[in-house]
């Protein structure tokens, strides 16, 4: 599998560390942490995921990927999304 890094270009999957579902947002108060930590999307289909380009530019990126076909639809820096 080749992951497109927005900075480095297309790279082999083994350069990356996988974190998973990019949708949970860290709660601000006391509530919602169980859901944040333990309930992640496990979609059969396109997911937004966090990957870390550990052996490249050291950026967290958000990849759109189909979990049934492994097709990758695109990627952006995770930080840009959060802004």
């Amino acid at each position: 599998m080749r992951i497109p890094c927005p900075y480095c270009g297309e790279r082999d999957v083994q350069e990356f560390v996988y974190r998973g579902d990019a949708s949970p947002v860290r709660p601000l108060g006391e509530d919602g942490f169980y859901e944040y930590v333990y309930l992640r999307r496990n979609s059969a289909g396109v997911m937004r995921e966090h990957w870390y380009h550990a052996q490249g530019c050291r950026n967290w990126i958000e990849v759109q990927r189909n979990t049934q076909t492994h097709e990758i639809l695109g990627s952006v820096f995770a930080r840009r999304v959060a802004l």
Partner: protein
Amino acid sequence: MSRLPTGGLIDRAKPLNFTFDGNVYRGFDGDTLASALIANDVKLIGRSFKYHRPRGVMTAGSEEPNALVTLGVGARAEPNTRATTVSLFEGLEAVSQNRWPSLALDVLAINQLASPIFVAGFYYKTFMWPAKFWEKLYEPLIRRAAGLGRASMLPDPDHYDRNHAFCELLIIGGGPAGLIAALLAGRAGLRVIIADEDRLLGGRLLSERHEIDGRPAAEWARMAAAELASMPNVTVLTRTTVFGVYDGREYGAVERVADHLPRATAGQPRQRLWKIVAKRALLASGAIERPLVFGGNDRPGVMTASAVSTYLNRFGVVAGRRAAVFTTSDSGWATAEDLIAAGVEVAAVVDSRTSRHAAAGRVQVAGAEVFLGAAIDDVRGRTARSVDVRMANGQSRRIAADLVAMAGGWNPSIGIGSNLGSRPVWSDTIHSFVLDSAPAGMTAIGAAAGRLSLSEALSSGATAAANVVADFGRSASPTAAPQCSDDPAAVTPLWHVATRKTKAFVDFQHDVTDDDITLAAREGFVSIEHLKRYTTLGMATDQGKTSQLNGHALLAEATGKTIAEAGTILSRPPYLPVAIGVFAGHHREAHFRPVRRTASHDWAVTQGASFVDAGQWKRAQWFARPGEQSWLETVNREVTTTRNGVGICDVSTLGKIDVHGADAAVLLDRLYVNMFSTLPIGKARYGLMLREDGLVMDDGTTTRFEEHRFFVTTTTANAGKIMQHIDYARQVLWPDLDVQATSVTEQWATYAVAGPLSRTLLQKMLPDLDLSNEGFPFMAVAEFRWNGMPARIFRLSFSGELAFEVSVPANLGDAFIRAAFDVGHDFDLVPYGTEALGVMRIEKGHPAGNELNGQTTAGDLGMARMLSKKKDFIGRVMAQRAGLVAADRPSLIGIKPIDRDARLRAGGHLLACDAASVAANDEGYVTSVAFSPTLGHSIGLALLKRGAARHGERIRVHDPVRGADIDIEVCDPVFVDPEGVRVRG
């Protein structure tokens, strides 16, 4: 000799000697082991898997199920090697396998007598009584009988290499379709890779008697190959099998670099793994001829018709003296004509179809009997001697023949095309499965696309190449395929010749018969996957290349379905078996993973260090001196000398991270349970980090050099993980913060200098610094210059002694430690290793990796008070869950043996002295132990239920996997200097 006097693509000027089962034979350069054995009239090559039936060569390609040998001897022995794909070389040694005592006389051939019982799945129905007998008797017998070749049991002595390639077009297979596509794409300037498993490009062109552009096809193939080799934009990989396609248009291939050589040159790899990223691919892997299912079809002497033709035309070898051809397809007639042209007697052509083939007259003229609407229903003889022909009128004729060519039609080799999940679909035109949709970027061409005739193959290759070329915005010229002689390949399938006389094999290697498939269907194994698993159809080394479809057709027949309804199985990589060594390449044995060495590694070697693995790092474990009897004696000396004088320890492997920026302190406050925004400049502070789930993640010290410049250390084990965690925090969680972070683990060589004399030593080394208690108190830090370069000193202690950590740029690490020992002579300075470090930290009750095991909370480790209530931090909320604050959670204690001579061991469990040794009484476990030379006895750290409240209690360590129980006293985890006088001294 069955070698024809002329013809073939062998070099008769280069004879080669080889042995099979110790007998010496001769072949020629260009032969395969199979062609050379046939040329020497060797018909019996191996024994089948279950019934140990005698078997010969059945095919001329990598689909061969029968002619498997062990190639080579000693550590280079390679079991289960297809004789049909082995290039002959001088001195080749091959032996037959799965037979005892010899190939000709195999005791386990007795299995055939029991074959009425040994039907598909018989073992599920028996061998159950007595229960204990399975492992002791039945299974060992089955295991010994099963299996084929024997592994050498010695480390593979050869090298394996790898390469990575990127191209616009990958062409899988160098037959006519692949060749023409490569020519067109190459001429158009595309970056092309063409790979073929054979040693020559050409595929079927090398085996059949065709003409292209007025030239013999083999000659055309040779010229095409030469043109491709001359193009700089084209890479030709022969002896290279593309074995699979993976996500991202990534293809795996294995190149056999030296397998065809008597001996590899020094450094030459045996094989090479290619990982190829190809924007487009053409699957030109050809088609495999189907055997026919009839009685005795496994006898040596029965071959696929295409194999018979290949041996004749390519190798100049006749596989028999009198042939019978059994065909359901036009291609069988071509083989009959090939035989006749080579001067071989064709006794009969048996065509199951009733229409008269155009060649019928010609073969009759040559003396062959032609049977239409007929079938062979038995082959007789240990190796084929005669065939029984069941004629259209129902009568039977026995005809002498020692070679039976069977032509059952063709199955496109679409395996790679379904690697990524594309379901093959049934074609009523060619009566086989074809690819309906291929993976992204891939197109099947030629026979692999069901274009079985030569002209179709060439035109489909040309068309596909032209399309690819156009997609890349280039133009191909010419775009048309060359003229060629043609060979219609129409087939009317005959899936099965019913016979009760002899076994009719479907899967030759695994001895799956027509009856087995009927039985499986009767027993309800009617899904093709159930059929496969119940009968083992298609699971042999050939992965069903010759058997799968016939088996599925028989299942369809037994269940009243069409083959299309019965479906087929998806092919998974590898397309052909691949040596495990080639996947590992350089990374085996000692080279499995890189070694990380600290700056003073070489110096430590000179000091007699023994090293221990810490992740990828090599760390000095202890420094034995001559005369020391045991590692314990060494470690005791290192600890005692350090506690009484001064010792130095390389702690460079700790993770180090620069955290800079206006919001660095804000980020650190969120990462750690305790506060860092209040840390004064020039000071260090111990910090504890939780995971978001509230359990302890890591610990270490953090230093503030400037308002916005912090320096974080992590444990050695977690260095990478924490860097990643910090990047997540600053990039994803809080991207609005102005924080930069980078790993500087490798920049600094760091040495812990510990012991009451550490200050004196360092003061002498670094006279410009004020290291006095007043000038440089506990937890103070300073930046200075050493040899003109930036350096740092920290007043930190892991050992519990007066201690400092000094960091210098790693390229100066070696110089620094040598300088320290130059000065240290006067102080009896000792180097100490991780073991002494461990002893001292246990004496001080500092938690480390064994305690920070991902299962403990801050409270468990006695650090609940560090959890700041003034701020949010990662893990704060989840750490409050009931299960993580439960009163009976194990918490950190110290333990001492009641009998001070007893030796504690980590991993023992804690139970009340009088409690029964059952899980219900388990109260915790020992995490770390050491022999404390300071106290003179064994000590340990442990996690014990409600441990903090149980100091003074007497319990026991239960350690059944290593020996007797030991009674211990629960105590405070800090054994030495609990008031911390020394560190502040």
